[in-house]
């Protein structure tokens, strides 16, 4: 990151304009259906001004405050994952001629320069994990194309939710890398750091001034407060061995009795990558499209192998999810698959808390009771 600069709040619109000048379609957070969602946004006034998000196990409610801040909330149900790993995507098409010959054609991945404003540190950490999965060996063409065309403006998280634990996973609340531009929101405006050549070019085009020492101090203090205010945590950064040593722990039965196997946690998790392929045949039988959809390890079909189900019950499915998320990821990508965003806690209909389950399974300590 380069030297920190300052963007006055009344000039925030210029950020959208300069990004648009560079040929990017701007996306940003906005209120829709009672939640913060990311979608097309070209007007700074459409940001969630004065909005906060109260999150608790099984609960997500927006609240209105009499302040001018527009990033004073932790996160919404989705951020970057659907933009890169599409919930539904045609992979290729096939046609069959009268002689039975098959012609396959890859679906051209739509390529469009997109900029996302307001990305959180947890979501940038999740993006790095998705990059390792989809853009490493055997790179996914659609993902790589969309990733290449992405510009990211991160915003430090000054208002973590009750469900957040990014400080414990080491992924937040401050944006440290992965963003082209990083902002810290203050009442009067934004501290701005560039994290890439594109970010530096953007800085040069913005009406920035040097920040005062007081502004720098205020920014650092807000982030430190956000870090200190998080009450949830995982017992350790690496729980791999503890989880695989406890595959018969009675807690798996306990959580299975509360888990609906609905897959909400998987849908909102910014690192979950499972997908399934479906056939979409044309009605005349001459064409078919191969479509990839998000999948969930909580479904029965997910564990189908040659006429049988490997995981016939919720106990083995929740265990599959958690041992992968906090265990197998270490082997596969060198770190835990959890970035501490807390979405799986807030969006679980029965309020299952990953930090409590992991603590119960991996430590001899009893998890702390909820107030």
């Amino acid at each position, binding site marked *: 990151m380069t030297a920190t600069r300052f963007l006055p709040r009344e000039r925030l619109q210029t950020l959208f304009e300069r990004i648009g000048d560079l040929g990017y379609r701007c996306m940003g957070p906005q209120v829709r259906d009672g939640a913060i969602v990311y979608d097309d946004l070209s007007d700074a006034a459409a940001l969630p001004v004065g909005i906060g998000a109260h999150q608790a196990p099984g609960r997500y409610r927006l609240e209105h405050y009499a302040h001018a801040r527009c990033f004073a909330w932790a996160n919404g149900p989705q951020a970057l994952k659907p933009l890169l790993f599409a919930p539904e995507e045609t992979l290729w098409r096939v046609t069959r001629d009268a002689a039975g010959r098959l012609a396959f054609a890859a679906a051209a991945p739509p390529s469009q320069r997109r900029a996302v404003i307001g990305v959180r540190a947890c979501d940038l950490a999740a993006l790095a994990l998705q990059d390792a999965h989809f853009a490493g060996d055997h790179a996914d063409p659609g993902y790589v194309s969309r990733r290449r065309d992405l510009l990211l403006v991160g915003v430090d998280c000054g208002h973590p939710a009750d469900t957040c634990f990014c400080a414990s996973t080491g992924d937040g609340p401050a944006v440290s890398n992965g963003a082209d531009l990083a902002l810290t929101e203050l009442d009067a405006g934004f501290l701005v750091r560039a994290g890439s050549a594109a970010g530096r070019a953007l800085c040069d085009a913005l009406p920035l001034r040097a920040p005062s020492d007081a502004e720098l101090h205020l920014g650092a203090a807000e982030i430190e407060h956000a870090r200190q205010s998080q009450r949830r945590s995982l017992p350790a950064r690496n729980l791999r061995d503890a989880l695989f040593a406890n595959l018969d722990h009675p807690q798996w039965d306990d959580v299975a009795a509360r888990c609906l196997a609905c897959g909400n946690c998987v849908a909102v998790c910014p690192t979950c990558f499972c997908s399934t392929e479906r056939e979409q045949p044309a009605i005349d039988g001459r064409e078919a499209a191969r479509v990839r959809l998000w999948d969930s390890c909580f479904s029965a079909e*997910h564990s189908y192998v040659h006429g049988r189900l490997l995981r016939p019950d919720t106990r083995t499915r929740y265990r599959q999810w958690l041992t992968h998320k906090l265990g197998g990821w270490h082997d596969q990508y060198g770190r835990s698959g959890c970035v501490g965003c807390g979405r799986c806690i807030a969006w679980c209909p029965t309020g299952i808390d990953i930090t409590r389950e992991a603590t119960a399974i991996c430590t001899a300590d009893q998890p702390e009771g909820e107030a």
Partner: protein
Amino acid sequence: MSTAPAPDPAVMGPPQEAEVVSRDDEARGLCTLHLRLTDPAARAAFRFQPGQFNMLYLPAVGGVPISIASDPAEPEHLAHTIRAVGRVTRVLATLGAGDRVGLRGPYGRGWPLQAAEGQAELRDLIVLTGGLGCAPVVAAIGYVTARRERFGRLVILQGVKHAADLIWRERYDAWAELPDTEVRLAADEPDRHWQDHVGLVTDLLDEVRFRPQASVALVCGPEPMMLAGAKRLVELGVPAEHIWLSLERGFQCGVGHCGHCQLGPWLVCRDGPVFRWSEIGWLLGTKGF
């Protein structure tokens, strides 16, 4: 921003068209499709290792992973032995010469034959299979028999449930004629013509001769059989890191992306399907994995 390598069209793109050249009916519900990529350039470029698999695809039906049962020295000819058991395999089993399918691959890590070659301490080879587990090792056996002098004693053990399930008897008979080679067959339920062992194929490990410390085992079949076989091989003194098992999971993408073959720390299609017992023995057989 991402510096990812360019996608590899052979394994990441759509399937390539393949033609059924011929079909063998092996046993009830079991057939072998002999396939050939129709594009000459793709056919010439295709290479595979024994133990790898392809994804076979039928329009409007779907795709299924099938191991390659033919000789890697002739990669223009791809044999796939199929049991009609699921939605896709039931349709594949109806195909005949001239029919077209889609083919993606090859995928996965195959048998470690190069590791056994030329290393005196690794020269005896035990091939322990059950049911259609014989298909993924046929290419490996062919590889070994074509280089017979580079391997030690060859022990081939195949088990079937019913005697009528045994396929490729003429191959087993031919292998039994090779020097320093022992072939034994087992059937749980024999018919009146059955000449060999009645019972589990893993029983035969105690009846055949090999040098446990100087052996490599290739194991493929139903998981209970592989678990029993690997444990017995260890008891007999074969080092756990010299026992290799080929696993089957719900492969869809073939490149470790879709997550269906997640097994603890591994994505089986990408990291396997062939694993050392020393790697997976601690987790394999745990219900749910």
